[in-house]
């Protein structure tokens, strides 16, 4: 009986999903709420795809059973949902001697040379390479913060996968791309984690509140050189990015506005993990910003920026492009800006209107958005029903190879979206991600344990272990060394190649290892549970479960024929005991269709 009801449900869903339903043309650009009569499984799937990372048919059915208004509310107003997730488990590789960290290796070793101590390490009074331990320590922290940041990436990805508040994580991802901050610049995973938690705490509240908090966030301050923005010598980096990237967009302010705003932010700094204001470094003189004059501080400048209609339009359009579609007409942009102002810059009610609108369910919106690498990866795992992000293949390597490494956006502008996610090369990488998920590599090397070839660490370690002297052991193996860059390593006080080896050894001793299990899939059970009895039904079930747009009849038949040929029969009952690999193969084919990139 149970099987039967599942089967009929599955068959019904397949029928509706495989046929493209055109929505009325007047839905496009309309903020009118979608009537309950138009609510169905496909539209619920679309909502979950966009407001979260997609889900299993059961999760979609749960939303489909509500009214559209209730379904949207359940996703947007998530604070009441009990969502116990473990906090990030710090490896404990930090110690106070490392803060403040040196801006460069020469800065660290020069300080040690001048004062006899640097980064909490004293220099050796006699003997060879007196500063070796300082150089070791500098590189140690660089390795540590990289490795620990990758663990934060895993921690966050796991949240995205299992959270009961998918919109929360989706918004954190949005703000991370918006207030793009990367560990490569910040060089302190603790600040990156703190920022990530800030973005989560204020994900769907007031934009003003979030903007002020981010402007006083140590990772952001470090990232945009705020520490050197002081009275009499303002550094424009921070003020420029606030106007250009965080609020208004280019063309809505002058260079003079930036210089004046930079003065208002002087003295904003951090100490350790806390924001501090240095009053003696703050310029409290008269400034003129965007036509307003006064003895402004940074918060007042933020309020001046927020009062400009262009700011609401810039933020609203960016949210809309992230959640709905890339093409925004100038009229729509104005309309969205007004909506955000009407909602007093509160993100949750703004999104509620957007997700309820007929526009969100129009043909221009549904199945037209190219998933980002992180969305692609997480939604694939969610639809596979996984409860843990696989350790093989490595999540960070995967997403980086597709162009989106968490906690390391390419630059302050964050990630470009839409078509720019796709190149011929990247499309193949996306398909190969699926292959490596269904058929995990048998020669996997954990990147958080085995030293990267680029640093030349392993040969040095091997030679030192065989008793070779350091100078010989660290001589590059290259036959022909003509390049200048190889000569940078020379210094009598320490050896950077030796430091590189020491740093890696010490870092992997401290930083916890990422668990390495491949995805344990059970596609056989998946199609069994759906009540599929034929190859065609299994293929239809997978198409329904994973694709947001219908495929043509011929492709559908060809995939079914492939499965039937692999199984030697169309009868799943007969093939039940051996169908797993064949199902995985057709899943790879389905998820390699160009259409799978759409959500």
């Amino acid at each position, binding site marked *: 009986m149970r099987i039967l009801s599942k089967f009929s449900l599955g068959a019904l869903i397949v029928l509706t999903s495989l046929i493209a339903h055109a929505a009325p043309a007047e839905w496009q650009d309309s903020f009118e709420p979608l009537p309950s009569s138009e609510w169905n499984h496909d539209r619920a799937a679309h909502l979950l795809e966009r407001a979260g990372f997609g889900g299993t048919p059961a999760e979609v059915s749960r939303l489909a059973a509500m009214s559209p208004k209730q379904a949207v509310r359940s996703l947007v107003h998530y604070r009441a949902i009990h969502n116990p997730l473990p906090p990030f488990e710090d490896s404990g590789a930090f110690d106070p001697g490392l803060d403040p960290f040196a801006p*460069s*290796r*020469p800065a660290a070793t020069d300080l040690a040379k001048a004062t006899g101590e640097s980064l909490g390490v004293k220099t050796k009074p006699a003997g060879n390479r007196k500063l070796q331990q300082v150089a070791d320590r500098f590189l140690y922290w660089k390795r540590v913060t990289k490795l620990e940041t990758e663990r934060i990436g895993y921690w966050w990805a796991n949240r995205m996968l299992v959270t009961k508040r998918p919109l929360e994580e989706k918004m954190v991802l949005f703000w991370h791309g918006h207030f793009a901050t990367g560990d490569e610049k910040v060089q302190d995973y603790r600040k990156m984690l703190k920022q990530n938690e800030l973005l989560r705490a204020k994900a769907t509240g007031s934009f003003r509140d979030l903007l002020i908090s981010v402007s006083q966030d140590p990772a952001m301050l470090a990232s945009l*050189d705020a520490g*050197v923005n002081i009275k009499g*010598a303002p*550094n424009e*980096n921070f003020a*420029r990015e606030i106007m*250009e990237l965080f609020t208004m967009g*280019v063309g809505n302010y002058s*260079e003079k506005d*930036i210089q004046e705003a930079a003065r208002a932010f002087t003295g904003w700094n951090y100490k350790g993990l806390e924001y501090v204001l240095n009053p003696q470094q703050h310029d409290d003189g008269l400034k003129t910003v965007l036509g307003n004059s006064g003895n402004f501080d940074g918060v007042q400048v933020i309020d001046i920026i927020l009062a400009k209609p262009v700011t609401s339009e810039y933020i609203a359009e960016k949210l809309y492009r992230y959640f709905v579609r890339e093409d925004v007409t100038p009229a729509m942009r104005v309309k969205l800006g007004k909506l955000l102002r009407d909602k007093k810059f509160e993100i949750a009610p703004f999104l509620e209107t957007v997700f309820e609108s007929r526009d969100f369910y129009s043909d221009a919106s549904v*199945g*037209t*958005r*190219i998933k980002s690498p992180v969305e692609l990866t997480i939604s694939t795992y969610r639809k596979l029903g996984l409860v843990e992000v696989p350790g093989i293949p490595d999540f960070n390597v995967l997403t980086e*190879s597709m*162009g989106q490494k968490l906690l390391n956006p*390419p*630059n302050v*502008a964050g990630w470009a979206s*839409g*078509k*720019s*996610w*796709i*190149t*011929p*090369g*990247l*499309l*193949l*990488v996306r*398909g*190969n991600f699926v292959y490596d998920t269904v058929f995990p590599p048998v020669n996997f090397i954990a990147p958080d344990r085995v030293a990267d070839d680029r640093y030349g660490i392993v040969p040095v370690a091997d030679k030192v272990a065989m008793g070779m002297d350091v100078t010989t052991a660290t001589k590059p193996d290259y*036959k*022909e*060394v*003509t*390049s*200048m*860059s190889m000569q*940078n390593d020379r210094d009598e006080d320490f050896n950077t190649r030796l430091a590189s080896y020491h740093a890696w050894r010490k870092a992997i001793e401290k930083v916890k290892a990422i668990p390495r299990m491949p995805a344990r899939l059970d596609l056989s059970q998946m199609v069994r549970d759906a009540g599929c009895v034929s190859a065609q039904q299994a293929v239809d079930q997978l198409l329904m479960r994973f694709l947001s*747009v219908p*495929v*043509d009849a*011929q492709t559908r038949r*060809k995939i079914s024929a*492939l499965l039937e*040929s692999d199984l030697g029969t169309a009868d799943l009952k007969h093939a039940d005991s051996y169908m797993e690999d064949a199902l995985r*193969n*057709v899943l*790879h*084919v389905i998820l*390699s*269709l*160009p*259409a799978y990139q*759409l959500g």
Partner: protein
Amino acid sequence: MEHAHTNATRRDLLKALGALGITAGLPLSPAMAAASKDKRILVVVEMSGANDGLNTLVPYTDDEYYRLRPRIGLRPDKVRKIDDRYGFNPGMLGFEQLYKDGKMAIVHGCGYPQQSLSHFQSMAYWHTGVPNGGERFGWLGRVADAIDPQLTPNFLVNIDERQSLAVHSEHHVPVVFDDPERFARKGLRQSRPLLDNPALTDGPNASRQYLDKVAASAREASQLVRAAWDGYKTPVDYGIRSLDLNKVAAMINAGLSSQLFYVSFRHNAFDTHVQQNELHGRLLSYASDAIAGFMKDMERIGRANDVTVLVFSEFGRRAAENTSLGTDHGTANHMYVIGKPVKGGHYGEVPSLTDLDEGGNLKFTTDFRRVYASLIEGWLGHGSKALLGGDFKTFALYG
């Protein structure tokens, strides 16, 4: 000026190639490889993040330079002097040699009116060749469409994580990849027909049509690129960061029909606001090593006469140093045109260090599109006026 003869030769060649039909998996015949050797190649190298031109090519006899940069200015005894006015950053042995060998044209004072100090805005202007305009396609994309109306497969190549706006083209699908080893689709044998030939869809979903188009290009290009990479071995040292120029060399070495290449020193690397000298010197040594290595490699495979490299950055940096031993966003900068056929030397007017604009920036003297025009006309043999939407006076960089 038009080089009619060059143009005609190439056109004929392209027709011939088109008739042969280059398709995926088809091994290149020796005849095709030989024919494509007659083609001229342009490699554009982007130094993202706004490279500090004044500390790249140091005016070491100009006292004003040291007044503006008392702490980060590079002392005369440190720089690699190329003449009685200029010296390269100490890490740039490769550039020094290229200049002294007469293979490098240095174009001074490049910029454009109403300079944007935003990295992304300014880079978009350089990518499109249309400052303060809304051009949809990239300048190299438009060049490809103009000089290759036959749409030769793999004509336009961009090696990067993401496609650059510079190669965005109306008619060409640029080959964009990062790692040649990964530029291959995995899949079991019985699935290949479905994986390699997905059905094309029609209908109003523009994103879907775009994906179909890219999928077709990926299938065709990946085998050629991988074969080129597998068949490439070089004794030449490109230094620590090759800037993907070794991949360009591999494709040239394989005789592919690619003529326009775009690579970049990625991730806004040159944005040196703070404590810049050590980092900047290192970045420049990487760039200089890689470019010098590439030129050496071209010499090795006998293609040095066919290749020009253009090096640029979206703008320069502030003339004066800032309080954090770095430099803020600036304006005019050098462009470098490098190649064996290039007539080395200084071009354009040098901006004055004493006559700065109100923001303390160099006043540009050379519209950067003059350099684009010089390459389009002098190297690629095509008119530049329609392509660039204006009549830009060319420099005689060749012959």
